[in-house]
């Protein structure tokens, strides 16, 4: 963290309070040890502060005006001191033996409002202390008072849970509004809840105020209608907000709760920065420095903390008056840099709302320059994820975007952000890469699940750009580890590849990107080595190929490299890159072709590109529900693309080998898992196969796996079928799932469409189907039994079904099943044949497109016109040549041959090849004669093919 905090045990444990002097050079803290310490803000935390000792009991409040500072304590006296010095000036007021609770000096510095355990609030003129206005009307004591920036309104927060707004501009003070039910009612002054700062905080524009509510969020209430505006809430804030403070210009609101101090943007109402709080300590007061970028607070352990530079450089300054309250049409022409996940720089409707209110109240907006917009375009708010935005910045284009949905940044599946100086760079089914930050260097550990095939190793990284490792991408594939580092000053981004097989450095290569380009994602794929890479006898499986590497860069492209580091092609990528994963023969790229939509959809698309020809096999939008993001993409053990989103759905892409015919099959719904019930946990996928999801189970709100490395858990994969009542539901589900995977495996096969392994799986499937048929027979559901019978793959399975029907004495059903069997045998409509037929159809439809020929430039011979009546019976097997049965066919063929002889030029196709064959024969004969001439032993040269043709010609040629 760039900003740092300084702490000092300033007071004894107990209630403490803090205020800054108006010029911001000093701060005053008071505690239960009845001392007030005066801190010089220019010195460090070890300074010896000046101390005011006058109070007899614990100090409850300090306040400062221009010339004086005031303290109030449990001894019921309000004392005034000379500015910046511990010199008592005089008594301002004395309550009737009860504690002073709060002091507030009006913006002009003339009057002080005093809240005590009495029910009346007094407003006393500091110079002329007999000049007192009493505000009576509270039923219980008043805990906090604050002034409106105009000095005409005073707000009081009472112990009975009401907030009253007093108008004291007139001669008689009157209650303008009493707001009930916002702040908690706390009657016991000894309770810790009483220490919570329930004061209202007015925005400098005076248009609205903030107050922490009893529901643990920050409520915004606008003037003059006293409407509640959308409140500030965040899921990370779970306990009561104990203190609030607003920066001088009203841009930032700081809140303290038990866990942390959060700084919110008052515009977007999102938390920008956080600081961990001290456990068990209650922060009793927060204060922004009026002149420095500094936030200070005190807690009930008596500790004073200064957080220097809570607002990082580059973000709008918390001091300088800026456009936070700028009303002049700024809300409509609001420009923001590229939206990115995790930052708050996009505008949402509520911020426009609050600005609109500011517009209504603030007349002199001119003093606020438009410069804050320029500030906002600085790099300050860009985080690591905003790689995409940076290149746009080069072109001096300002991205104008009105989008509420934060765009998901690019991520590498299986990597985690740096937490407690450690992170995972890759975690997949091959292995794990961990990084430990040792301040001066990083230790990178590469560990494999299968230690027999590859050996784990670790190395120390002494690169001088060690910080850059944070954004480093790692990728583990079957053949080697890839890593990329982002550019850092003079270092360009580069991709390094370390193959596992060869331990000499000859296999390593690196690929350097031009300066300022970044690597957003990496993937490597290729055939899996069948032999162990550590086996020295085989050359590490190199001969099978080295695979393919894909690099996604910030230049909006996908660069395909071969496994040996040769550049193959650079493909442009539509929209922003999000993630990718590579399989043996294709790469799955997830990108965002457009923008996110207003209603929360990420607008992601998955594209499958083949390695061989760079063909786009599929392009399908991802089935992610609105308001959710992609969590993981990967390839299953069967080679099928899979995605997992934050709503807990796992989808696989079925039919992905059929161009443009893929669909997403939901294979797992993590919310319906048995173990998920009544448990707060989430799943972080590592790998997927057809039966199990390998994942890491994260408890509670954990987002990423931590250290030490958790065990990979296995969850059963179940399609989310809703009918779960019947006993067969689980079998039906497994049959459907197995069917999907058999089809996927079959799509990957050649024309054979089957192999012994698939046959085995189909036999297993038939067994399950027969079990379903049996239960259908038992419950007398003949239609279902027939439907299931039709799905059986093998004839003998159908016989078994028929026997089952006979066993249950369902003779009608048995006859029908027998009929199905007979029909199958006669028609030869096996499921396999149907698939083959279907594929033939698809091949016809998916024939690729040829380039168009220009008219009058086509010098090729005229294309053969296919006329069925004249077609030769193709490739007739010659053993029927002399049988009488094909006499007609022979006659047709002879006629065609005769016609072909008479034609010039000869048509393309078979005829031409004959001519070539003849030429070949002539060559051979010439060769033969030559050899004979040389006088060598003449051996008959076998050329059976041409001989057969010549024989044919002789037989059927002339007539």
């Amino acid at each position, binding site marked *: 963290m760039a900003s740092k905090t300084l702490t000092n045990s300033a007071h004894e444990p107990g209630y403490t309070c803090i205020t800054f002097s108006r010029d911001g050079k000093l701060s005053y803290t008071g505690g239960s040890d009845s001392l007030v310490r005066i801190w010089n803000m220019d010195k460090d935390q070890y300074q010896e502060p000046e101390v005011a000792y006058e109070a007899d009991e614990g100090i409850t409040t300090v306040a400062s005006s221009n010339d004086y500072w005031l303290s109030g304590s449990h001894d019921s006296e309000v004392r005034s001191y000379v500015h910046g010095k511990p010199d008592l000036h005089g008594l301002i007021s004395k309550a009737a033996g009860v504690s002073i609770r709060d002091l507030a000096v009006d913006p002009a510095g003339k009057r002080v409002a005093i809240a005590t355990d009495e029910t009346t609030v007094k407003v006393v003129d500091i110079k002329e202390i007999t000049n007192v206005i009493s505000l009576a009307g509270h039923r219980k004591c008043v805990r906090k008072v604050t002034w409106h920036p105009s000095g005409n309104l005073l707000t009081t927060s009472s112990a009975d849970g009401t907030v009253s707004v007093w108008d004291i501009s007139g001669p008689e003070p009157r209650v303008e509004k009493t707001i009930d039910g916002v702040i908690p009612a706390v009657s016991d002054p000894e309770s810790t809840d009483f220490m919570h700062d329930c004061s209202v905080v007015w925005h400098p524009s005076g248009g609205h105020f903030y107050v922490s509510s009893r529901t643990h969020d920050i409520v915004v209430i606008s003037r003059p209608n006293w409407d509640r505006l959308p409140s500030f809430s965040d899921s990370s804030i779970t306990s009561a907000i104990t203190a609030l403070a607003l920066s001088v210009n009203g841009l930032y609101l700081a809140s303290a709760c038990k866990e942390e101090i959060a700084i919110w943007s008052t515009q977007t109402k999102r938390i920008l920065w956080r600081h961990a709080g001290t456990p068990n300590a209650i922060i009793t007061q927060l204060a922004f420095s009026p002149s420095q970028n500094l936030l200070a607070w005190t807690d009930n352990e008596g500790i004073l903390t200064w957080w220097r530079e809570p607002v990082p450089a580059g973000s709008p300054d918390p001091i300088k008056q800026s456009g936070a309250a700028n009303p002049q049409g700024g809300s409509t022409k609001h420009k923001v840099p590229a939206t990115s996940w995790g930052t708050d720089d996009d505008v949402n409707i509520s911020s426009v709302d609050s600005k609109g209110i500011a517009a209504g109240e603030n007349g002199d907006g001119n003093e606020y320059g438009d410069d804050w917009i320029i500030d906002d375009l600085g790099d300050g708010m860009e985080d690591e994820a905003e790689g995409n935005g940076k290149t746009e910045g080069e072109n001096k284009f300002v991205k104008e975007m009105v989008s509420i949905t934060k765009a998901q940044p690019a991520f590498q599946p299986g990597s985690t952000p740096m937490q407690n100086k450690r992170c995972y760079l890759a975690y997949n089914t091959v292995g794990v890469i961990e990084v430990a930050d040792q301040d001066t260097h990083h230790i990178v550990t590469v560990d494999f699940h*299968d230690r027999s095939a590859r050996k784990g190793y670790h190395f120390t990284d002494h690169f001088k750009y060690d910080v850059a490792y944070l954004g480093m991408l790692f990728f583990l594939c079957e053949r080697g580890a890839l890593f990329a580092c982002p550019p850092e000053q003079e270092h360009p981004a580069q991709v390094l590849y370390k193959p596992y097989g060869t331990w000499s450095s000859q296999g390593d290569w690196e690929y350097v990107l031009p300066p300022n380009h970044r690597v957003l994602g990496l993937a490597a794929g290729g055939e899996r080595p069948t032999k162990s890479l550590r086996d020295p006898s085989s050359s590490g499986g190199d001969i099978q190929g080295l695979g393919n590497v894909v690099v996604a860069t910030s230049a909006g492209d996908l660069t395909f490299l071969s496994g040996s580091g040769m550049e193959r092609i650079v493909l442009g990528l539509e929209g922003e890159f999000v993630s990718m994963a590579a399989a043996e023969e294709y790469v799955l790229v997830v990108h965002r072709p457009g923008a996110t939509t207003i209603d929360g959809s990420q607008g992601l698309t998955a594209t499958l590109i083949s390695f061989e020809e760079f063909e786009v096999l599929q392009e399908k939008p991802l089935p992610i529900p609105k308001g959710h993001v992609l969590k993981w993409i990967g390839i299953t053990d069967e080679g099928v693309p899979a995605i997992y989103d934050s709503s807990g759905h796992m989808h696989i892409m079925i039919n992905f080998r059929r161009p443009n015919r893929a669909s997403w099959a939901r294979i797992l719904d993590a919310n319906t898992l048995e173990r998920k019930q009544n448990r707060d946990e989430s799943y972080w996928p590592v790998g997927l196969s057809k039966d*199990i999801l390998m994942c890491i189970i994260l408890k509670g709100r954990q987002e990423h796996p931590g250290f030490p490395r958790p*065990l990979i858990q*296995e969850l059963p994969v179940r399609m989310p079928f809703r009918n779960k009542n019947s006993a067969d539901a689980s079998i039906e589900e497994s049959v459907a799932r197995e069917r999907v995977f058999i089809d996927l495996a079959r799509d990957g096969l050649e024309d054979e469409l089957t192999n012994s392994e698939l046959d085995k799986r189909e036999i297993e499937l038939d067994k399950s189907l027969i079990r379903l048929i049996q239960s259908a027979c038992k419950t007398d559901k003949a239609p279902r039994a027939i439907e299931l019978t039709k799905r059986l793959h093998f004839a003998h399975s159908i016989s078994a079904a028929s026997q089952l029907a006979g066993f249950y004495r369902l003779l009608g059903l048995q006859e029908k099943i027998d009929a199905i069997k007979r029909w199958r045998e006669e028609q030869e409509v096996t499921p396999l044949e149907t698939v083959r037929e279907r594929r033939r159809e698809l091949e016809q439809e998916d024939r690729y497109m040829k380039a168009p020929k220009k008219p009058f430039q086509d010098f090729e011979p005229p294309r053969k016109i296919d006329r069925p009546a004249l077609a030769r019976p193709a490739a007739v097997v010659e053993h029927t040549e002399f049988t009488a049965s094909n006499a007609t066919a022979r006659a047709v063929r002879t006629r065609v041959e005769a016609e072909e002889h008479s034609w010039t030029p000869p048509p393309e196709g078979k005829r031409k090849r004959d001519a070539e064959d003849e030429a070949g024969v002539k060559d051979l004969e010439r060769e033969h004669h030559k050899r004979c001439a040389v006088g060598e032993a003449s051996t008959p040269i076998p050329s059976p093919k041409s001989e057969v043709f010549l024989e044919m010609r002789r037989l059927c040629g002339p007539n």
Partner: protein
Amino acid sequence: MALPQPLRTSVSPQELELIASEQLVEILPLITMEKTAFISGAYGPLRPPAKCRIPLWMAVNLKVKKKCHIIPPDWLNVEFLQERLSRETSYPEFSQMPFRFAEIAKAILDAAPDDVQNAEKVRSLLKDLREARQAKSREGLAKLDHSELSLPNLCSMEINELRPFFIHAMGVLTQLSREEQNGAAEEP
């Protein structure tokens, strides 16, 4: 018989451990292995990072060669044992434990202490559990009858410890009751 007298009446703990090593445990393999047939059945295939269930003897063997991590059974952790221990000390009857828990726990803790979270604590809990149960089984022996001894949920190792004593004691009791009966029969 070559064995000394006290061991002859009962099985030795080592032998019990051998018997227990047929039990299946889950492992996380670090090597690839095809499905392999053994006398007790076919196990595997091992495909890291997928888990696999194999017999304990094989798991211990692989673990010694650093070729797997043993995933401890769900009862071999601090929470479970703590809960059982508190139940053991607060209720008179034996709490339910896996029949061969002592042997399996010993085998796993000996071979793979690094795979068990908080192994030292688990060890001491197992020892406490053993002592608590031992005290109970001693108490239970007081109820020994000439014909029956009912101690539900007693585990193999504890039975083994008691066996030499109660077989002998039961023999004596039976003899006594028989003599009593005979005496009663002779008296009238």
